[in-house]
């Protein structure tokens, strides 16, 4: 149906005639007849808007959106202020493209410049780009950034998110560079193992903070080992945790990456999400992706433009630092609105609430026989416990009560608590678990 074509069939016929053609297929005369379709595509004919909505609603109804989400593992259920959606649904922002024409797009360029500044403030780093696809691909691109003629080996902690490890592994295979993982000891990246694996061919070491197991890494020790070997330290961070935890800049990281989804983006079955990347000043010209800079216009007014484009694909082609073109601009704007709305106090509060509620829940949960913390290190808002009954069975029982439990890892559970869960809810969950386990 439709196709959102303003012109009617008659108007189109007129237009065709006015330029000297009889049949629309005259315009397709260069298409060899063997590849010109003679029949319609075998897909249904178009639906009216009313029917499309009904169909999609019907498909969505086959999902269960859990009221209580206690699962993190790379996607976090944080509170999103209403202002975030309201600002980013402005059509001037959603329907525009990359701000190539600076004079027409100061609003977009300025909002990106502000986002870059906020990421620098949150992470403590000097420079940020305009965004990447997601945390995992951002980590992979950061690793690629560190490669040079002499240093080609990439080391990744086994305590990083499994899909981040896998993405970095894939990018390394793509570039034919050696890839290795650093073992874990007691829930933390093994410093001694890193010391034995790192050498003068290592380009970079990637660690995640807090790590996938929820533990806070000894990043100072790890980064020291990395730097002593002449390699670059990359840290993948959980942005909400930076409302409380030491910044990667304070750990002397060279490059910071992370998943920005906790900063105002919905769970959305995994995407669109938001990769961010920031680095020390010296590495600015190796950063992939778009960057907005400040300058002046021909009348001396402050102006914002896409800059350092000599790194990018449209200028350097095969010599570009990466191939990134479209990124996650509107998602970056959501994160910027979130960070501005929450402010320093709000971000600190989101971190503190997540921390204290997670610790409270852990305390109450481990009062139940059979639930104990697997690791005894310090953690932020995620932790792993043992399970007295089959973990999958517990997951199913809690699902029936509208609770998405911690992620099942063998027979343990990786729990996550955010500011969204009230004490009452947490107490109810503990009560429910107690009941299920006594059966």
């Amino acid at each position, binding site marked *: 149906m439709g196709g959102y074509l303003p012109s009617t069939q008659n108007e189109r016929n007129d237009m065709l005639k006015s330029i000297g053609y009889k049949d629309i297929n005259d315009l397709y005369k260069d298409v060899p007849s063997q590849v010109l379709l003679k029949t319609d595509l075998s897909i249904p004919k178009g639906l009216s808007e009313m029917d499309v909505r009904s169909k999609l609603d019907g498909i969505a109804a086959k999902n269960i959106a859990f009221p209580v989400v206690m699962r993190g593992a790379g996607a976090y259920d944080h509170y999103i202020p209403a202002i975030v959606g309201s600002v980013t649904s402005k059509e001037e922002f959603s329907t525009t493209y990359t701000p190539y024409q600076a004079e027409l797009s100061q609003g977009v360029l300025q909002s990106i410049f502000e986002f870059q500044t906020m990421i620098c403030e949150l992470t403590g780093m000097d420079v940020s780009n305009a965004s990447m696809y997601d945390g995992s691909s951002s980590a992979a691109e950061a690793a690629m950034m560190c490669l040079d003629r002499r240093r080609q080996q990439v080391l990744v902690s086994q305590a990083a998110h499994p899909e981040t490890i896998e993405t970095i592994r894939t990018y390394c295979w793509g570039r034919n560079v050696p890839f290795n993982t650093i073992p874990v000891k007691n829930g933390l990246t093994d410093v001694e193992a890193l010391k034995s694996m790192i050498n003068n061919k290592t380009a970079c070491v990637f660690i995640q903070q807090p790590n996938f197991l929820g533990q806070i890494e000894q990043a100072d020790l790890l980064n020291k080992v990395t730097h002593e070997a002449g390699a670059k330290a990359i840290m993948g961070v959980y942005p909400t945790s930076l409302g409380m935890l*030491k910044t990667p800049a304070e750990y002397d990281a060279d490059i910071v990456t992370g998943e920005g989804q906790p900063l105002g983006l919905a769970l959305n079955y995994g995407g669109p999400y938001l990769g961010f990347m920031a680095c020390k000043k010296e590495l600015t010209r190796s950063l992939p992706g778009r960057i907005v800079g400040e300058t002046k216009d021909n009348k001396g007014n402050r102006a914002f433009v896409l800059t350092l484009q000599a790194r990018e694909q449209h200028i350097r082609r095969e010599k570009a630092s990466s191939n990134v073109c479209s990124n996650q601009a509107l998602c970056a704007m959501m994160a910027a609105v979130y960070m501005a*709305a929450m402010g320093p106090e709000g971000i600190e509060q989101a971190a503190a609430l997540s921390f204290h509620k997670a610790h409270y829940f852990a305390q109450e949960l481990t009062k139940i026989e059979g639930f104990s913390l697997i690791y005894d290190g310090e953690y932020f808002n995620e932790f792993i416990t043992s399970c007295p009954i089959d973990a999958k069975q517990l997951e199913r029982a809690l*699902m029936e009560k509208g609770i998405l439990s911690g992620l099942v890892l063998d027979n343990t559970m990786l729990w996550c608590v955010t500011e969204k869960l009230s004490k009452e809810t947490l107490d109810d969950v503990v009560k429910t678990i107690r009941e299920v386990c006594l059966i």
Partner: protein
Amino acid sequence: MLIFEISKKGRKSDYLPACDVPLSALPQASKLRKDPPKLPELSEIELTRHYTRLAKQAFGVNSGFYPLGSCTMKYNPRVNEVTASNPNFMGIHPLQPLESAKGCREVLDLAESLLCEVTGMNAMSFQPAAGAHGEYTGLLLIKKYHELRGDHLRTKIIIPDSAHGTNPASAAMVGYSVVNIPSDANGCVDMDALKKACTDEIAGLMLTNPNTLGLFDPNILEITQLVHACGGLNYYDGANLNAIMGKSRPGDMGFDVVHLNLHKTFSTPHGGGGPGSGPVGCKNILKSYLPDSIMIEGRKPESIGQVRSFYGNFGIVVRALTYILSLGSDGLKAASETAVLNANYLMHQVKEYFPVAYDHVCMHEFVLTLEKTKHDKNISALDVAKGLIDYGMHPPTMYFPLIVHEALMLEPTETESRESLDQAAMAFKAIKEKIDMDPDALHAAPLSTPIGRPDEVNAARNPILRYTSK
């Protein structure tokens, strides 16, 4: 004013309640950040007014004509936003048990089957988050294919000189070296050069058809056959698919793998530079190499691995699916035919004022060359583009493809009315008249915007990439 310049200490909103659980001991001081981040401190009303001001300095498809060649700036239907913002999509955690995410699975499966039919492919992955990401993924499929054949000689990719910059950049990321093929006098692949380039060192060819000049290469079948004959595979850059939906399919042209740009052809919003979605489709020979999500479905033995987490930009796939179901077989064909009609209709008028690079029937886009105007009157493609801003439209793509000097690429798309196109043609006429009467005036353009031409040289030489408070 920057948001940081509006900020005043102590201003804030109350989004979160007070802590209702007993406090636990914080981590040791050495693990805590020393100072809070210097994020803006302002009330919600100040925040909303700030973004309202910024929105006034943005130009979207909703603002006016946006013929940015190669980007397919078509109308972004509102219904797509409605279906995508269903809480039963937005509130689904990527790692929830599959039986509680059946709707999400259905969206991906349905989108895959529809788009495979549109493109003539057998399988598709939605993991790549953008076109360039899709190109990278597609090349990894080709790399895996040759690796499993035990063929390590294949280190080169053939790419025409008219290709989008992401093509060679993606090839370089996969460790391939690029064999550039020139375009012939008709703007299409030089067949002699291609024949010479097809050796046993070729992993494959990357091509878009219609190409970046808006021309459909009539030799397409011979091109793909030549590459297959020397043992390479054919990769289709789907950026220009808007010309041929329901008319022709890359799978029938001899392509083995394609990527699509859902944010171009399938109407999802461009968002100021994303989020997009660059799904990769392929024939059966490459199907088992498609990326997987090791946490959602487990590792597939022959998969190339992952290019990002989970299943990619799911919310964008919902929007694209809504569009495809709305249009159906009849609507998709009408969209492509009208895109091609609109481009030819506009080209017919505009070529009265400025020369086209290739005076030939075009597909969904066409390229003007300002080379002569630059030479005779010192008016460049940039000057014309800036001049068009003062006529209320977004300029066309400038300086691309590289093989045309002083290029301006126009892609009107199918969602423009006849009047909109006529008006655009009049803008070109007015610019032409200005060039004849008072060329210098164009060097000052645009005059109607909040800023004049920015100093890009200084921006790159002395980069200021963040705000710093005094």
